């Protein structure tokens, strides 16, 4: 087991190196660089740019160097905990991202809790009452949740919240609280604004999870040990929760790999529509304006979370389910 973990950890190094190359290349693929998109943006608004200043910035940002040198500079910095410099904000990347992380994690965490809280009872109900009216009704709702695009739901709910409750459009709190210390009123304002993103981002995840739980649980419920347990007179609640539900949770553990990066990045498009002060829109803007170190370091961080998440979920599965455990070197 220890050897397996060691191997997996070593394997992460070439994976991350490959990812960093791909990220860097893809960010460089569109024509031009940050300064050129900056100039184009100013000109689109009719503003003029001083060529001397641009020349100075090009040198200062190192954009006049060959690509390979820029790449090595970035990677070398990351190894030392320096994630580069955001051109857009004129700040080191860590300072730019830092502020937004707390709110992002907050929103994502609330969303995940919401997803679980809704999906579990519904999934269990659907599986135990297969093909009942309740199952059909909830499945229909679930499919609607998957099918309606998040951004549209977001727009509709935002409009209704503004017209019906007078909630200010977009954002995670009323503007007057931004940048103020936390007070009761500010917390209430956050609660008033955060239910929309939580529901919107949550719906599609909820629906997916309901279907997965239902399918897995159905598989288990038909197995012989369940029949035996029932025949022996175990109470129905215990039959359900003690064995089949635990088995059906495997998919859930393997999901951790994808949940970790999700917590960090949030859901970009919804966050943009709702203009949430989370990390998603910042990543999108960084990519659009070719703010390459900000975008690159951000993506690198997400990639790292995925790699770690997958490892964690693999290990957790092995711990939880004896059938998956590796015996000696057989599995290789």
């Amino acid at each position, binding site marked *: 087991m220890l050897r397996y973990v060691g191997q997996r950890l070593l394997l992460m190094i070439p994976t991350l190196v490959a990812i960093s190359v791909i990220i860097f290349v893809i960010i460089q693929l*569109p*024509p*031009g660089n940050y300064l*050129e*998109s900056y100039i*184009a*943006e100013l*000109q*689109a*608004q*009719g*503003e*003029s740019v*001083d*060529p*001397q200043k641009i*020349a*100075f*910035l090009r*040198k*200062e940002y*190192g954009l006049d160097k060959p690509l390979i040198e820029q790449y090595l500079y970035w990677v070398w910095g990351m190894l030392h905990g*320096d994630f580069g*410099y955001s051109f*857009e*904000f*004129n*700040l*080191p990347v860590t300072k*730019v991202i830092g*502020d*937004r992380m707390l709110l992002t994690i907050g929103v994502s965490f609330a969303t995940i809790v919401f997803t679980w809280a809704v999906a579990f009872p519904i999934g269990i109900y659907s599986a135990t009452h297969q093909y009942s009216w309740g199952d059909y009704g909830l499945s229909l709702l679930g499919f609607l949740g998957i099918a309606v695009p998040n951004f549209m739901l977001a727009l509709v709910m935002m409009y209704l919240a*503004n017209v019906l409750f007078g909630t*200010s*459009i*977009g*954002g995670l709190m009323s*503007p007057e609280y*931004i*940048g103020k210390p936390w007070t009761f009123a500010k917390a209430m304002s956050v609660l008033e604004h955060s239910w929309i993103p939580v529901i919107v981002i949550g719906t599609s995840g909820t629906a997916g999870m309901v279907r997965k739980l239902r399918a897995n649980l159905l598989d288990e419920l038909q197995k012989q040990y369940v029949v035996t347990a029932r025949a022996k007179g175990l109470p129905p609640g215990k039959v359900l929760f003690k064995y089949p539900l635990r088995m059906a949770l495997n998919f859930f553990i393997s999901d951790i790999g994808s949940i970790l990066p999700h917590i960090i990045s949030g859901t970009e498009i919804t966050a*943009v*529509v709702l*203009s949430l*002060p989370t990390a998603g*829109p*910042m990543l999108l*803007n960084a990519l659009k304006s070719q703010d390459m170190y900000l975008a690159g370091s951000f993506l690198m961080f997400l990639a790292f979370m995925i790699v770690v998440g997958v490892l964690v979920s693999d290990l957790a599965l092995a711990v939880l389910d004896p059938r998956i455990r590796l015996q000696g070197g057989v599995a290789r």
Partner: protein
Amino acid sequence: MKRRCAGCFVGLAAALLLAAAVGAEEPPALAGDVAAGKLPQLAERLPRTPRVVEVKRADWTPGRYGGEMRFLMAKDRDIRMMVVYGYSRLVGYDEHLQLVPDILERIDIEGGRVFTLHLRPGHRWSDGEPFTAADFRYFWEDVANNKELSPFGLPQALLVRNRGPRVDVLNDTTVRYSWDDPNPQFVAALAAPSPLYIYRPAHYLRQFHAKYIGPEKAGAQAKAAGSRSWAGLHQKKDDQYRFDNPDLPTLEPWVNTTPLPSTRFVLVRNPYFHRVDGAGRQLPYIDRVIVNISDDKLIPAKAGAGDVDLQARYLRFDNYTFLRQNERRNNFRVRLWEKVLGSQMALYPNLNVDDPEWRPLMRDVRFRRALSLAINRHEINEVVYFGLGKEAGNTVLPRSPLYRPEFATAWTKFDPKEANGLLDAIGLTKRDARGIRLLPDGRPMELIVDTSGESTEETDVLELLRDNWRRIGIALFSRPSQREVFRKRVFSGKAMMSVWTGLNNGIPTPEMSPLELAPTTQDQLQWPMWGQNFENNGTGGEVPALPDVVELVRLFDAWRVSATDAERERIWLRMLEIHAQQVYSIGIVTRALQPVVVQNALHNVPADGIYSWDPGAYFGMYHVDTFWIDPKERP
């Protein structure tokens, strides 16, 4: 020492007299600090002769102090718009586009080449330090002529025939810039919305400058801040236009207090601001300005929900009906201001296209005229612009003293017959089965127009154009891309023709630079290679090949060293005439309108205005510092 104090005393007495004479009151927001001794009295904070702002407009009223004004912006970086709206410049344009001294008390110009700038004695930076000729000296000696801070030389506007000025600091409040030849760009650059800053808050910036703290310390400091060199750190701390450094002293009406990144910026009044109203009361009236950052596509919706007090940026004409609908519910009014683009939308034939068959055609004036004549501008105006536009070529607007009706109407009458005749005369007589004319090498004339893909407006107009040009045997295809790709394609000659807005400044006066009319930068869509050639002083790009374009360059060079307004006007008119006759860009409609959302509680915003970057600084020339808020009307 004694003399200085006596001077102080005299100045103080004079200021007190002035204040007493007009009965100036302390802005209530500052009264507490003044009473507590944290701030000096009003008379000591103002320059000895403050700038008196007297707006002569029927609906203008003296304001009431207090309140906050909210704006919406799409990016943190947009905080620079507050420097544009604040519009404190050495000299600036007033509502009638006349240049008036603002930060300066007076500017004396001799022969268009010697500029003597007189500062206002007693003027202070927002942190209370004196603003003097030393700040000009710091810029000239330690920034502009410092090899590390300005490795690429002086700003363009300071160069005449590639030679810089002579700068003399005559005394504490007088600075002289002189050139050997006239420099008409200089004053316009000082008044620009993104101005040429020839002064710096020296007392603040010295702490980053290697000359003052030694290279070792400067280097270590830069390294700690994550910059590559001390020059980088200095540059970052020093940007008066970016407005992203709350510690940098400013001369603007409001001071930014929020560092980047943020989704909400708070600006507070500058207690040392140099302008007063007619009654001697210090401006601005409004205490705080709030800038909230939101997604640009959400801004019209938020404006409609009443989340702003004044907004034009990121509102488009097609938001107008939605905004009107919400006027009453959310207590605001939507005004339509006039944009000053030479043309709302113009087509640019690429004279540097790399296709050997198309290039001579694009350079043939008959071809360009035929394209222009074949456009049914009236139809486009009715269909796309609700008939609110004005059908005209891409030239200056009637507000400009340089406007001539014949420039606006040249080659714009819808006349497919004459257009066909012109094309036949070129020799493009063969047609294929669809009725499309054939190029000399036998290919059908399929003209691809590049767009930057930013608005559906462009593609809508091109759809209508497709039918128009079909009638003269030319097939039009549009190719939407993305802004940088678009520019790259134009510059490399891959794009045959492109769509963009017309002249940026449609209301020029003779003393403004006719830069846009001659090939001067590679960003110009009709002749990028020729522009690059000029930009790089004759290296790179291509030398202009058409006699009329060569004349434009010659005229522009003549303007750059012109001494009198009459001479400049003559040059401008000749350049505009060449453009009108040669149709280097094909304008479609002009007089586009900009919706401006104004909260009912906000006063002194003109009902009709022009929305212009330069000259005008958008709201800047209407004196945002004299806008005021009536708390009773706040919902």
